[in-house]
C-alpha cells in the first residue's frame, strides 16, 4: 500500500517537472483604467491563437506607464496598451518597447505614426474638447464661444471648469492646446485672464464632469467642461431614457481641441514575442478597431471602420486639432505644468 503511494507521488513529481503539454499560452496586457473591450472580441483572439489574455489595469495613463517603466527589468506584462502622444517620448526614452514592424501598419494613415522606430504603434485616437451644456446656453440666449479667446469674455465668467494638468490627462491635453495656440510663455497670460474670469479648476475628469458640469447627470454649476469630443455620443448611448438629441456638444474652433493618439507596443523582455505580435496585429485589425468606439469612446486609427450611429450623429472630431510633437512635450511638460500651477493656483 505504502509503495503504491510512493510510486504515485514519484509519478506526480515527475509529471510536474515534465514540459507542459501545449495548453493555452497566457498573454498579459498592461493598460490604463479606461481600457475596455467586448468579451467576444477577446474570445475570438483567444480561440484563433490558443491563448488566454489577462489584463492588468494600473491607474491612469501616466501612472500605468510609470509602473511599466519601473518594472522594465522584470516586466509584468507582454504588451502595453495605451501610452498617448503626451507620454510617448517618456516611454520611448525609457526604452520599454521592442520594435515591431506590424504588417497592419501599412493601412494606417501616416499622421498617426509618430514613432518611426516602430516601437509604439498607433491604435486609437480622440480629441479632448470643451463640452457645453446646450440647454444652459439656449435658455439664456447666450452664444456658444467659438474660440479659446472667447472664453475670457465677461459673459462667460465662471462658466468653465477644467482639470488640473498635474493630475489629469484631459487637463494636460487642454493646457497643451493653449500652449500650441498662444505659444510659450504667452499661454500663461491667457490662463491668468481665464483665472480672472472665474475659471474653476478641479483635480480630475470625474469631479469636473459629474460634480461641476451642468450638462451631466451630476447637474453642477458650470455649463462648460474640458472633456472629450465623444462625450456627447456617450451621453446618448448611456441615457437612462432614450434621447432624441445629445444634451451636450463640443466647441470646435481653432486649437480648441487637442488630439490624443494612443499607442500599443510589445514590452521588452517578453517571453511570448510571437503571441504578442499576434495581439498587436489583432489590436490594429478590423474587429478590434470596430469594437473600440463603443467600449472606450475613442476613434479607430484604421480607415473604413463603421462607427456606431451615436458617434456619427453626436460626436465631433476637430478638423484642425492642436498638435505638439511628443519630443517637445517631453522636454517641456514639467516646466509648463509648474508655470501653469504658479499662474493659476498660487
Amino acid at each position, binding site marked *: 500500500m505504502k509503495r503504491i503511494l510512493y510510486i504515485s507521488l514519484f509519478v506526480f513529481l515527475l509529471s510536474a517537472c515534465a514540459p507542459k503539454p501545449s495548453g493555452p499560452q497566457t498573454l498579459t496586457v498592461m493598460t490604463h483604467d479606461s481600457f475596455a473591450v467586448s468579451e467576444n472580441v477577446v474570445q475570438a483572439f483567444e480561440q484563433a491563437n490558443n491563448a488566454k489574455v*489577462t489584463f492588468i489595469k494600473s491607474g491612469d495613463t501616466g501612472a500605468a506607464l510609470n509602473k511599466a517603466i519601473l518594472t522594465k527589468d522584470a516586466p509584468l506584462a507582454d504588451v502595453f496598451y495605451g501610452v498617448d502622444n503626451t507620454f510617448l517620448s517618456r516611454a520611448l526614452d525609457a526604452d520599454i518597447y521592442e520594435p515591431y514592424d506590424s504588417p497592419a501598419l501599412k493601412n494606417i494613415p501616416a499622421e498617426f505614426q509618430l514613432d518611426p522606430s516602430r516601437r509604439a504603434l498607433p491604435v486609437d485616437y480622440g480629441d479632448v474638447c470643451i463640452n457645453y451644456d446646450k440647454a444652459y446656453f439656449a435658455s439664456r440666449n447666450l452664444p456658444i464661444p467659438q474660440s479659446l479667446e472667447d472664453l475670457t469674455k465677461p459673459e462667460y465668467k465662471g462658466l468653465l471648469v477644467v482639470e488640473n494638468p*498635474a493630475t489629469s490627462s484631459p487637463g494636460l491635453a487642454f493646457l497643451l492646446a493653449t500652449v500650441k495656440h498662444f505659444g510659450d510663455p504667452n499661454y500663461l497670460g491667457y490662463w491668468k485672464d481665464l483665472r480672472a474670469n472665474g475659471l474653476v479648476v478641479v*483635480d480630475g475628469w470625474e469631479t469636473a464632469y*459629474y460634480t461641476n458640469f451642468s450638462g*451631466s447627470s451630476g447637474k*453642477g454649476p458650470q455649463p462648460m467642461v474640458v472633456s472629450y469630443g465623444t462625450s456627447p455620443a456617450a451621453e446618448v*448611448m448611456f441615457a*437612462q431614457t432614450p434621447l432624441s438629441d445629445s444634451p451636450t456638444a463640443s466647441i470646435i474652433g481653432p486649437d480648441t481641441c487637442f488630439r490624443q493618439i494612443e499607442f500599443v507596443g510589445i514590452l521588452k523582455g517578453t517571453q511570448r514575442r510571437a503571441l504578442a505580435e499576434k495581439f498587436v496585429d489583432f489590436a490594429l485589425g478590423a474587429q478590434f478597431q470596430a469594437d473600440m468606439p463603443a467600449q472606450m469612446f475613442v476613434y479607430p486609427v484604421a480607415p473604413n471602420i463603421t462607427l456606431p450611429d451615436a458617434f456619427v450623429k453626436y460626436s465631433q472630431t476637430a478638423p484642425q486639432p492642436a498638435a505638439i510633437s511628443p519630443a517637445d512635450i517631453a522636454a517641456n511638460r514639467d516646466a509648463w505644468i509648474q508655470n501653469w500651477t504658479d499662474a493659476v493656483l498660487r
Partner: protein
Amino acid sequence: MTLFPRHVDAKTRRHNFLRAFAPAWLKCPLLWFLPLLFLGVFFFLPLFKILAFTFDLSALTTSNLQLAFRVLLFTFYQALLSTFLTLLAGLPSAYLFARYDFRGKSLLRALTAVPFMLPTVVVAAGFNALLGPRGWVSVIFPLSSFQFTGTLGAILLAHIFYNTTIVIRIVGNALSRFDPKLEQAARSLGADSRRAWWNVTLPLLRPPLLAAALLVFLFDFTSFGVILLLGGPRFATLEVEIYIQALQLFNLPLAALLSLIQLLSTLAFSALYTRLVTRTTVQSAPRSAESNVRKAGSLREKIFVASFIFLLSSFFILPMLALPLRSISRLDANRADRAQIQTGFIPDYYTELFINRRDSIFYVPPVRAAFNSLGYAGATVLLSLLLGFPAASALAKPGRLEKILDPILMLPLGASAVTLGLGFIIAFGRLLTSPFLVPLAHTLIALPFVIRTLQSSIASIPDRLRQAAASLGASPFRVWQTVDWPILRRATLSASIFAFTISLGEFGATALLSRPEYPTIPVAIYRFLSQPGGLNYGQAMAMATLLMALTTVGILLIEKLRLPGAGEF
C-alpha cells in the same frame, strides 16, 4: 464564572508545563513572531525596495526641501485641526453611546461607522448634493452663496465625517467598560458631575483617547482622496504631492524624499504616543457594558441626548441620503426644463446593474462585486485578528522590546500608499495579480486599528483576576477563555468592525492589486464614474447605495453576533 477545575487532565498539565518552562523572554518573541513576519514581508520589504531603488541624494536640493517643508507644514496643520475637531465631535458622541440607552441606538451607531468606508468620490457627491452650489442647503437658503468645495472647511468637514467613528468606537468602548463606582465615589466625596468628569473619568480615559487621537491624526496626516476631491488643486498634503511627483511627473527621487519625511513623521508621532500612554494605563475592574447604560433621566440629560441624536443624524445621514435618493431619481429626462425639481422615481439604475449592455469583458454583476468585497472583507477580519491578538497581548504589558515595536506597528498607517503600491510592484512582480494580495494589503491598514482596539482592552484587565483563576488551577487557555475573553468580546467586535469596513471601502490598493475581472464594489463605482452618461452616473449611485446598505447590515450583524463562550458577567 466557572473557574473551578473538575479534574486536571493531560492537556492542562501540558499547559502548566509550558507556563512553567517557557520563560517570559521567550513568550514575547513568540507572540511577536507572526505579526512581525507579516509586516516584514508585506510592508518593510516592498517599502525598503522601492526607497532603495528610487532615493537619491541629488533630491536634496534647496527647492525640493522648500517644497517638502511647505507641504509638510500644511499637512501637519490640517491634520492637527481635523483631529481636534473630530475629538470635539466624537467625545460627546462616545459618551452618548456608552452611557445612554435610546431607541434606534445600534442603528445610529452603525450608521456613524458607514462613512468610514465610503469611497471619496461618493462622499464628495453626497456633500455636494447637500452643500454644493445646487445643493439642498442653497435651495432652502437661496441667499447663501458660499463656496464649499475647494476650501479648507470642506477638507475639515470631510475628515470629521470620516473619522468620528474612530473616537466613538475606541473611546466609547472604554467608557462603557468603566467602573462607575469610581465616579460615584468622587460624587459621594462632594465632587459635582463636572468635577468628577474632569478629575476621575477624563484621566482614566487618557489611553483610549490618545489611541483614538493618534489613529485619527494619522488618517488625516496621510489624507489623499479628500484633499484631491474636496480640497481641490490648491491644497496638497504629502501624500498628494507624492502621488503627483511619483505617478504624474515621474520625479521618483523627490517622491522618495517626501515618503521618507512622511514615514519619519509617523514614527515620531507614534513614539510620542507610546511615551504618553505607557505612563497612564490604569487597570480597573471591568464592568459589563450594560450596567453602565441607562435612559436619560433629568431634563438636562434629555436635552443632551436628544440634541446629540439630532446632530449626529443630520451630520451623518443627510450627506449619505443624497446617494440613495439620486440612485432612484430620474436624472436625465427633459433636460430643457432641468431647472424644475424632478420628482420621478425609478428603479432603472438597479435593474441596469444586471445587464452587460456593452458586452464588456470587464462587466461584473453587482452580486459578484458584492461577493468579491465580502470575501476580501471576511479574510481581512480573520487575518487581522489572527495577527492582532498576539501583538496586542504583547503590547499590553510593555517591556523594552514593546516600547520599540509599538511605534513601528503604526507605520503602515503613515506610509505613503502610492510608494507602498510601487514597492509591491517591484517586490512581488508577477505575483501582483494573485488574489491573495488584496486581503493582505487590507490587513496592513486594518492591523493598527485592531491592535489599538484590543491593546487598551487587554491592558485594562486586572492581573489579579487572572492570578485568581490560575491559582484555582485553571490552565492558561482556561484563564484566557474565562477571564480575558468575556472582557475582550466587545473590543474584538470593535476591531472586527474596523477591519471589515476598512476592507469594504478600500480603493487604492484594491485597484492596484485586484484583477480587473474581480472588482470590489468601490472599484465598480469608479468604473461607472469614469465615463459620461446618465446611466453610468445612476449606476454609480446605485452601487454606492448597495455598498452603504451592505456595510450597515454587516456592522449590525457583527454587533449582534453572539460569539461563542461569551458569557455575560
